[in-house]
């Protein structure tokens, strides 16, 4: 009940995978692991939607709506009437990062 992180936007299309393993190298949470023929989506719930796997996959076998998960930026965007998903970014002023 108090876990908002059990779902995310990560999608893997194993039929496209060419087993180059780059996703297993760039993922900071071990979401993908080596498998036979194609990589395995082992721990999808650990995905933080950074987008490293999708951006580095040469055959677009991975899709994810990536973004910086920063509440401060999203709340600010929402308060200013902007789309929370669009330009949420907080660097420069008193941001988070």
């Amino acid at each position, binding site marked *: 009940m108090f876990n908002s992180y059990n779902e995310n936007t990560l999608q893997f299309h194993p039929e496209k995978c060419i087993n180059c393993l780059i996703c297993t190298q760039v993922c900071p949470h071990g979401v993908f692991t080596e498998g036979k023929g194609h990589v395995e989506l082992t721990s999808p719930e650990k995905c*933080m939607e950074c987008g490293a796997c999708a951006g580095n996959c040469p055959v677009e076998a991975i899709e994810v709506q990536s973004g910086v998960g920063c509440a401060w930026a999203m709340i600010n965007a929402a308060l200013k009437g902007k789309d929370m998903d669009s330009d*949420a970014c907080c660097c420069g002023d008193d941001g988070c990062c």
Partner: protein
Amino acid sequence: MDTNNNGGCCSSDTEVNTGQFIQMIGLDKNSPAPEIQETTSDLTFNDRFDHFLARWGFRRSEHIVQPGIYKLGTPDADSPVFVSANYTLSFDALRSSLAGIDCYILVIDTKGINVWCAAGKGTFGTDEIVYRIKWSGLSKIVNHRKLILPQLGAPGVSAHEISKRSGFKVEYGPVRASDLPEYLKTHTATPEMRKVKFTFKDRLVLTPIEFVHVVKPTIIAAILLYMLSGPLAALIAVIAAVAGTVLFPVLLPFLPAHDLSIKGIILGWLVTIPFGIVLAADPSIVLWEKILTLMAMFLLIPAVTGFLALNFTGCTTYTSRTGVKKEIFKYVPYIALKAGTGIICLIVLGASRLMEII
């Protein structure tokens, strides 16, 4: 799939600028390449002092390394090339881990932001790297065509795209620069080296900047609360701020529940309990005043720590955007309700005191 446009305010204009620059400089073959600068793997007192200031958020946009190509030791045309952000903490972590290794470091312009955050915004990205490869004349400096990037730069980068556009093949090193000497022995990283952590030390170094961020609003709130209902109310503001910015990051994994807002609210309750007991045991305060003060404390402190905890999502190493958005919709209304009710309690207290004086 849109890894490159997830951080609008920084990336959009940078991408345009970089694009124009590539065109300008790419076409002008006569533009002189920058001189190779020298660096060492030693961290001096000044470096460490700079890191200290950066950690405290002092002139936080000024901890910048000049973009360019640096040589460490005595590299030759076959030496490895590492890519880094132009933030002193990033660059210094890299060079101090490369003691005894002759190599080049290509520092790209990430506007003084660390590798991971810059990658999230796309400034540590494909365009900037391709541009800096051309700008620095790297293909004339080394014989090989290989770049070693920090793994955490990957969210902003398309390795195959860099290869296609520059001829340089990207190799992702480990998450932590300190694992580089081990990594370089075989050029493969263990699964452990590939995983990002959030250790006690990692969390502790974040507390100064978290605290600095809330100092101003805390002082203002403390003064207002003091005038409204006395020193105890002012203390509430200070406790809430310290708990939310210092205790919360430190205790993060030990607090129950998964959602950060809930963890923050629970922490708020925990820190309020001792003060509540002292207050409840004080025989000099009349009952209704006691009840109102206790209500204000138990409503306001968890509201503040809960909100600060929610905002800490941007600093953790594991929260996804989808999850953070869910947290916002789930808990912000509840936190606002708590805070609103708490403030009403304080106003009633303040007003009744004022009446007594009159």
